């Protein structure tokens, strides 16, 4: 027992190592491909820098209008303070349009890399008080900080997910320690940074209500008032100025653009992929059978056009339907949280809520899968089942991000990132869950030998065939498709990725649901 304090002291310093190695890779990736999101964020820098607060949400100089909640706008304002010193054109509303000087790229990329320190701290905090061995800690840090998903989305495609997810992990880590008020505070702050995280709000609400607001009617009510006022203060700090300027309508119109359609340009691998496929399938066969089916005028990805439905046969899906579906899907978890609010389950419940939001939500981006894959990393080592589930989920979800990077230069990078992740994870899990034979002498008897032995971490024939399926989808899409079909069916490779990953996501959803219902 003399060892732990000493070794703990050593470990504390060690998170800097994986974090700095990741930073080196991020620095090297600076000149790589960046999506239009780069220009989006640059425009927000210019917008917040050159316009008064009252016009932030009504400006239409660029098509990339501000559509994140106020805290993110403040964050951009804070960054623009430095940005205007680095390169004044970057923060110029008109001259800066589509501006990407070397300094601009460097500044914006570095701002993402630096803001990732929140993620690093939260990963450290998440593993600090739990009884992990130094190896387990390291593995969790590697899963979070070296996650290929974050590299692809944040440091190649360009977004600020690392720091937002860091905030989520921070909130979860406080809840796990029983510091509910601080946990709730950080979640409220997170919501004011990016409202897409609101999917887990019901879970937070039920959990905090049952776990924090207890201890009798008076004390419970007092705590409810306390946490309610904390949340209110956070929201007031965010939206207060806009309320003052009478901008609330503009803010909400920007934040909830329901006119965008059920699916994003590339179909996120969720439940609606199957719904659309079923519709196409039915339409195809009904036309063959002689029914008169009108081809839909509106597309799934584009804006909502009048009353016309993008579906040929099946009923139209409205935002309200997706909202109710998501809530229904979360409800088992809410019941569990109501009955038995345990801190150790928080990260699983929150991840589950984001899974539901991803599968059934309206206009879901493929990037949203990070919202549950990253938090689940901290629970991946709880049991072999968890590890197996995480192994699949992370591979599928990171693979589903592949279409984000479509240029040749980044192709080998994303493949190597995923391979490295898979191999490290496989080695890590199989070292954490080695084969254990029973130590009792009776177990040596042949008949019993099988029942008392736990095999090492393995993925089984089913898992292997799933991974080979993934490999097939990728090889088909990249190489075979063009050779066999030429220019015909150009959407097929992407559709295959969508469908294949959607299957994986649904598997993960069912596994998580079962796990949450069964576990005590």
């Amino acid at each position: 027992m003399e060892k732990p304090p000493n070794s703990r002291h050593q470990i504390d310093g060690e998170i800097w190592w994986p974090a700095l190695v990741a930073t080196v890779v991020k620095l090297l990736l600076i000149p790589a491909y960046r999506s239009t999101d780069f220009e989006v964020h640059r425009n927000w820098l210019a917008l917040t820098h050159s316009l008064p607060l009252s016009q932030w949400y009504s400006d239409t100089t660029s098509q990339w209008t501000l559509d994140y909640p106020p805290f993110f706008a403040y964050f951009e304002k804070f960054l623009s303070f430095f940005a205007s010193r680095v390169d004044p054109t970057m923060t110029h509303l008109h001259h800066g349009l589509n501006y990407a000087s070397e300094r601009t790229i460097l500044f914006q990329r570095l701002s993402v890399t630096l803001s990732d320190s929140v993620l690093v701290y939260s990963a450290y905090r998440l593993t600090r008080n739990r009884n992990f061995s130094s190896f387990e800690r390291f593995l969790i840090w590697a899963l979070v900080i070296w996650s290929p998903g974050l590299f692809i989305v944040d440091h190649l495609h360009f977004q600020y997910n690392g720091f937002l997810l860091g905030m989520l992990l921070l909130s979860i880590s406080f809840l796990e320690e029983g510091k509910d008020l601080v946990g709730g505070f950080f979640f409220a702050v997170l919501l004011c940074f990016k409202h897409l995280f609101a999917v887990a709000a019901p879970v937070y609400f039920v959990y905090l209500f049952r776990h924090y607001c207890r201890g009798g009617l008076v004390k419970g009510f007092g705590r409810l008032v306390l946490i309610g006022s904390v949340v209110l203060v956070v929201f007031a700090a965010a939206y207060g100025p806009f309320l003052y300027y009478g901008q609330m309508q503009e803010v909400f119109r920007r934040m909830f653009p329901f006119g965008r359609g059920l699916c994003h340009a590339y179909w996120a691998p969720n439940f609606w992929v199957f719904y659309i496929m079923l519709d196409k399938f039915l339409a195809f066969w009904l036309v063959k059978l002689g029914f008169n089916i009108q081809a839909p005028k509106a597309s799934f990805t584009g804006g909502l056009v009048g009353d016309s439905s993008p579906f040929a046969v099946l009923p139209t899906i409205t935002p309200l339907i997706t909202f109710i579906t998501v809530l229904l899907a979360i409800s088992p978890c809410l019941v569990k949280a109501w009955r038995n609010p345990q801190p150790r389950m928080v990260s699983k419940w929150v991840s589950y809520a984001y899974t539901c939001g991803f599968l059934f939500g309206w206009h879901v981006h493929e990037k949203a899968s990070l919202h549950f894959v990253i938090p689940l990393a901290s629970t991946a080592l709880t049991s072999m089942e968890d590890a197996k589930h995480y192994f699949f989920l992370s591979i599928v979800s990171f693979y589903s991000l592949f279409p984000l990077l479509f240029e040749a230069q980044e192709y080998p990078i994303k493949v190597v990132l995923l391979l490295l992740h898979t191999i490290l994870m496989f080695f890590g899990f199989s070292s954490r869950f080695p084969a254990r034979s029973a130590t009792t002498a009776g177990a040596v008897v042949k008949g019993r030998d099988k029942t008392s032995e736990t095999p090492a971490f393995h993925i089984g024939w089913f898992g292997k065939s799933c991974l080979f399926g993934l490999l097939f989808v990728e090889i088909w899409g990249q190489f075979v498709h063009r050779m066999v079909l030429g220019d015909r069916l150009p959407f097929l490779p992407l559709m295959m990725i969508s469908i294949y990953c959607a299957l994986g996501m649904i598997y993960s959803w069912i596994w998580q649901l079962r796990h949450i219902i069964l576990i005590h």
Partner: protein
Amino acid sequence: MNDCPSEKNHTLLNPKTLLRVTNAVHQTNTAAGPESDPNTNIWSFITTRSTSSWFLCISLFAVLIRLAVALHPYSGAHTPPMFGDYEAQRHWMEITVNLPVKDWYRNSTVNDLGYWGLDYPPLTAYQSYFHGILLEFFDPASVALFTSRGYESYIGKLLMRWTVLMSDLMIFFPAVLYFITVYYSGKTTGDRSNMAWHTLMILLNPCIILIDHGHFQYNCISLGLTLAAIAAILSDRNLVGSMLFCLALNHKQMSAYYAPAFFGYLLGKSVRRKNPILEILKLGFVVLCTFALVWWPYLHSMDASLEVLSRLAPFERGIYEDYVANFWCATSVVVKWKRLFSTQLLKLLSLTATVSACIPSMIQLIWSPTKRGFLQGLLNCSLSFYLFSFQVHEKSILLPLLPASFLALEEPFIFRWLMYNALLSMFPLLRRDGLVLPYAALYGLFILLYHAPGVRKDARKPDFYSSVLESSAFACSLFLHIIYLTITPPDKYPFLFEAVIMIFCFSQFVLSSIYLNTKQWALSKSSTQVDARKKSL
């Protein structure tokens, strides 16, 4: 609220009781011995696996870093009319793909040797030919005769980068694996735990990555062949080793930096065999055959071979170019070598200086050819060549760095030291190429990997003086970096900072060279003592 068990969880989360429980669980679970216990070393989940598994892991990381460095600009990007090494390599592909073999080294209307004429031995030409065919298949415009001069495009850059990566993967990576397995074959398990770290040090050498995948060259081929040759000789396959080394020589004549060490060690070993003459004849035969094979297209006439040979020794380019941290360039601040002496005399001077700097190490190798001595000798000879030979380039520091990385475990200080100074000595070159960012990143990565947590617990603690010395020199180096980046030199001395950096690095290299030579001689003393003890027993 009684049904809420979270209070229990609270008590479970923090106190020592649970720690004791989990510790007990861990002890029973990991009964496989201390070696595989993940609690002792966070890396054991990789290092306790088979060699091929962890090598695959490290290789993937190495590939990732190379791919990321390759995103950055290459030498001479968008700088007509001459561009840089990238254009040279591309031009060689253009020439070899479009002209018959006999015209590759010959000045003609279709092959202007003044514009990046081929000046590496035939193996480089063959390599350019194969890569040229690949490029022609995917992007014919990039190797078209005449019209492709200064050709720069997204896909062209990508294909060129991938040919380097391919060569690296096909030659350097397997050579590292070969070397590591040979080097650690007779070692104890304690030493073997450092295998992965050592591999990392050789495979992620920042200088080689920056020059090959950033600046753009194919050093990985000649260095990989040399590495394989060394591994073969360490495992007593002398003939295979000499053949591989001849191939390395025929890819880049700079590999001759290692030649005295190979010569000395092989001679020393052969002399101690039963039939020394036969051994030497066998080696000579292999060397001649390899050379004949590589030079076959040019052996039909004396003129043709001399034509190629004259291309390989560009004496007209002067004793040094740019700012290289070697003797001639460093002393030129005081003695204007180029003005005072004729090229002929300088050739003789540099030859004498180089040979006399190599001689001690070579004699030691002939005297007592040990494996450790061989590695030290490789380092000493290549360093002497770098310091004293004719027409040395900044990039030639890669050659001493390779054997230095073999000694990463035995001589960690000198390895680290050479690496820092080699990086600094190439800094002006890499800055010109626009590679400051990857330079800084790889510098940082090297320090991080060198000091990776949980590996290589060095038993020897550095004493106070050497650590003070090291940190002050490191501070100096950092200072020079910052000055070079931020301050514009006075108009009168536009290359002032380059000269300061060069003189600083030169002094460090000379000190390292002296230290390493004494070390090598100390080896033979200790080995003779061991021999004497054995005999007396």
